[in-house]
């Protein structure tokens, strides 16, 4: 990574952008799976069964992390843009990652 980018708030920006991109790419699949319910309960169940494998569970863990980190990072940005300036943005960004990871782990522990 270019030297000038190796600072925490650039990484926070990158994480926010990539998590948003990841979630946006995931949504069509998500809507498709849910939409299977239109073909009846059995079809919906079959689609959900597809999500049972460990690889998918790990991907879901990743997605929960992406959603949580995009959410908390987004709150930090809404604060930055609407409240008075804080010098704590590095701390807030780190907290966002930590809490999101914690939430994602909570999901994974219940998923297995």
């Amino acid at each position, binding site marked *: 990574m270019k030297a000038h980018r190796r600072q925490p*708030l*650039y990484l926070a920006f990158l994480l926010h952008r990539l998590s948003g991109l990841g979630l946006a790419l995931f949504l069509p699949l998500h809507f498709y799976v849910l939409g299977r319910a239109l073909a009846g309960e059995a079809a919906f169940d079959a689609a959900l069964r597809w999500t049972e494998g460990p690889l998918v569970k790990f991907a879901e863990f990743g997605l929960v992390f992406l959603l949580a980190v995009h959410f908390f990072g987004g709150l930090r940005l809404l604060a930055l843009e609407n409240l008075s*300036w804080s010098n704590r943005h590095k701390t807030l960004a780190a907290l966002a990652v930590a809490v999101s990871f914690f939430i994602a782990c909570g999901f994974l522990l219940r998923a297995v």
Partner: protein
Amino acid sequence: MQDLDHIQVKVWRGDASGGGFAEFDVPQQPAQTVLDVVTWIQRHADSSLSYRFACRVGMCGSCAMMVNGIPRWTCRTHVNKVMRDKRLTIEPLRNLPVIKDLACDMSEFFDKWKRAEGQFSGKDSRQQPVAAISPVEPARRAANAAIECINCAICYAACDVVKWNPDYLGPAALNRAWSLQNDSRDRRHDERLQAVSGDGGCLSCHSQQGCASYCPNELNPTGSIAGLKKMAASAFMKKKYRERHG
């Protein structure tokens, strides 16, 4: 004669049409700055090297260059603080077209400053009394916090939105606009807000904070831009503003 240690210095040579790195062996000196290194190269190794400097004491910002990929004032950058394994890489400021070697063309930087209405517009003349402004009122504090910019373009070089969006006015211009928006004597607040909240304006900032990280005067363009965003959003909420500006 004491055998001096040497440092391997890669210096970008070329012009607008392209170029590459040239390597130089530069003797190490105590308390040596990167500007000292560049000056040594030009005086003793290759007199065709072009670079800019003026005050050489950290006041004018003319000597700004990329040092190991980070924009710095070379006169204030000590070699022993930044070199790795006795190696140094020196390039012209990023995001600006190169004239020759380490000297870049600052025209677009200043054009954007103008486009952001970075100049003060008062209405009073010497016939009016001096404006009474308290130094502790919030707006004046905000203006003062942003006012020490000396246009060295380090923030401009650090900013990736500048790189990705050619229309983006950049941290310095927007920071100046913010300081003027907080100046109660200025008469073009409305026009300036228009200028900085359109295409390429303050709304394009993604708060990467490279500007605030590398500003040698410890300014905070990210904070200034956040202030402009707030101003733009609340102005928009007022119907009269919308009617006047679409």
